[in-house]
């Protein structure tokens, strides 16, 4: 049985790229276009890994990440942040959210800054599953 990997990104170009990489490496791709859809998908399909964009409409990646890491049933799902913004800015916004919600979350397992070579993405996924 192939491992299921969910890609959450509002950019169709990024989705088709990641889906192609996943297919080429014998993973089962799942897609979601925004944070809300992404959470629904995670709850329904329980993927083995989530590749998550940061800047998205409807529940940003920042919020979804925070949700995943504070939900006991979803905490174990590994997450690769896959984004155009620098890690530093992401951590800053994550910290702001922590202060706001009062719960600490761990730093993302893997943080990839676009553009990413297909092989690097594959290596990152394989490191986690």
């Amino acid at each position, binding site marked *: 049985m192939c491992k299921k990997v969910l890609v959450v990104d509002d950019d169709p*170009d*990024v989705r088709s*790229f990641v889906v192609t*990489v996943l297919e080429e490496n014998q993973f089962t791709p799942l897609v979601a276009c925004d944070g809300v859809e992404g959470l629904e998908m995670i709850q329904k399909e329980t993927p083995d890994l989530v590749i998550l964009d940061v800047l998205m409409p409807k529940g940003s990646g920042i919020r979804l990440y925070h949700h995943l890491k504070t939900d006991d049933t979803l905490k174990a799902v590994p997450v690769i942040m896959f984004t*155009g913004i620098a890690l530093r800015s992401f951590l800053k916004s994550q910290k702001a959210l922590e202060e706001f919600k009062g719960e600490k979350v761990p730093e993302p397992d893997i943080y990839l800054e*676009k553009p990413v070579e297909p092989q690097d993405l594959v290596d990152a996924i394989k490191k986690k599953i």
Partner: protein
Amino acid sequence: MPANKILIVDDEQPIVRLLSMSLKSDGYETFSAYSGEEALDVFEKSDPDIVVTDIKMPGMDGLTLLKKIKELDPEKEVIIVTGHGDIDSTITALQYGASDFINKPVRDEALAIALERAKTKICIREQLASYTHDLEEKVAEATKEIQRKSNFQRLLIHSSHDAIVAFDQDWRIVVYNPEAARIFGQRGRDVLNKMTIDDLYTSQMARYFRKEAKNKVNHTDLPWQEMILETRSKNKMPVRYATNVLHEKNEFMGIVNFFQDLTEIKRLEKELIQSERMAAVGQTVSGLAHYVKNILIGLKGGSYVVDVGLQNNNMEKLNTGWQTIKKNIKRVADLTQDMLAYAKDRKPEAEACFPNDIVEEVVELVTDFAASHNIHISRICDPGLDEMMLDPRTVHRALLNLVNNAMEACLELEDDTRKFVVEISITKGDDGSAIFAVKDNGIGMDEETRTRLFTPMFSSKGGKGTGLGLLVTKKLVEEHGGTIDIDTSLGYGSVFTMRLPEQPGISRNGNNKG
């Protein structure tokens, strides 16, 4: 009244006694002497205010006594008692400074009058003395105060950070402080009271101030102005200066010039402008780099998908990848076009066109996108709107930009319950200009976004905007002589109103419809 002590002198003792009694009863203190010599003795001991003396006495007579008393104290009043018709003695007595005469036999009333007169004299003299004394004190005080004030002013002028140069009515330099010496490079002792305006200022400046002095009879203050000051030694520096033309009762007294050296301020200003420009360049470059990076991500992703399609002979992958590449090629093209449009000046090329038609064109272009994102596009066209002289390319481009922005503003508001509407309306203004309004019920803007709207490379669309769209729109509109206004409210939507006046047409194939 203090003048109360009277010395009575007569060789006839009964007269002395009689007068003494009479005066005592009037409240005087009296002293008696029966000869000139005795009188002098008593005078020195008892210091009377008034002496009443007979002229004819054995030994020292009255006139000699008068003379001696006046020598001792010229302020003492001496009343001379004379016999009838003794004119010579009277004249001598006057010369010696007698204050009054009474005839023998001495009558009380005559004596009383003479005493009163003497007392009044003493009193006036005392008042005069005290008044003079006061006056002297006041003058001394005033002199001290003037001295103090003048010192204060001198120090003030001396320590002023402004250079102060003043000229008297003959244009001689009478005030010249150290800052002036610094600016003009001439020592105070070489300048003060030695030089005139023509020696210190350039001939052009001197001419200017002479003219000002003549012109500003009723209006003496000249506002602060800036200029490049040139000294006679050919040094140049930026200064701020003010001039006061001084008058006293409409009489020209001279002028004062104040100079402030602006060298340092100008240098700082220049530095600031430079650093602001560098910051703007940095911002522009980093914004641009971010956008180009996004295009690169698309191109790389697309080419990978194409590679996979080729390897596996998968048409679907090939197609998906190729679409991605084409889309990003278009983004490069758009960016280039925006950059050129922003960088280059372009004169609008007006031609007769129907604004309603342009609206239709734009609506047609965005219909598919709007439909797939559940945005309703409505248009309110003015059917009475006739042909107008506008540059249709400007209108098309600007309107398309605004409509695209409006749709994106709708998508940004993550509200599934709202029915998004973008409304394009066109009317003719009172001044004959075409007014296009694009209204959306999308996310709207807060004050910060609103104020940064026309900043280069500012984009609220994450990496998706070039940050040039509105800037280009504004530039196109302004080149067309028009204006663009924004009314917005965060969470409720925005209205962009573009007002384009008609432009004189350019001749096309000799057929100028303007």
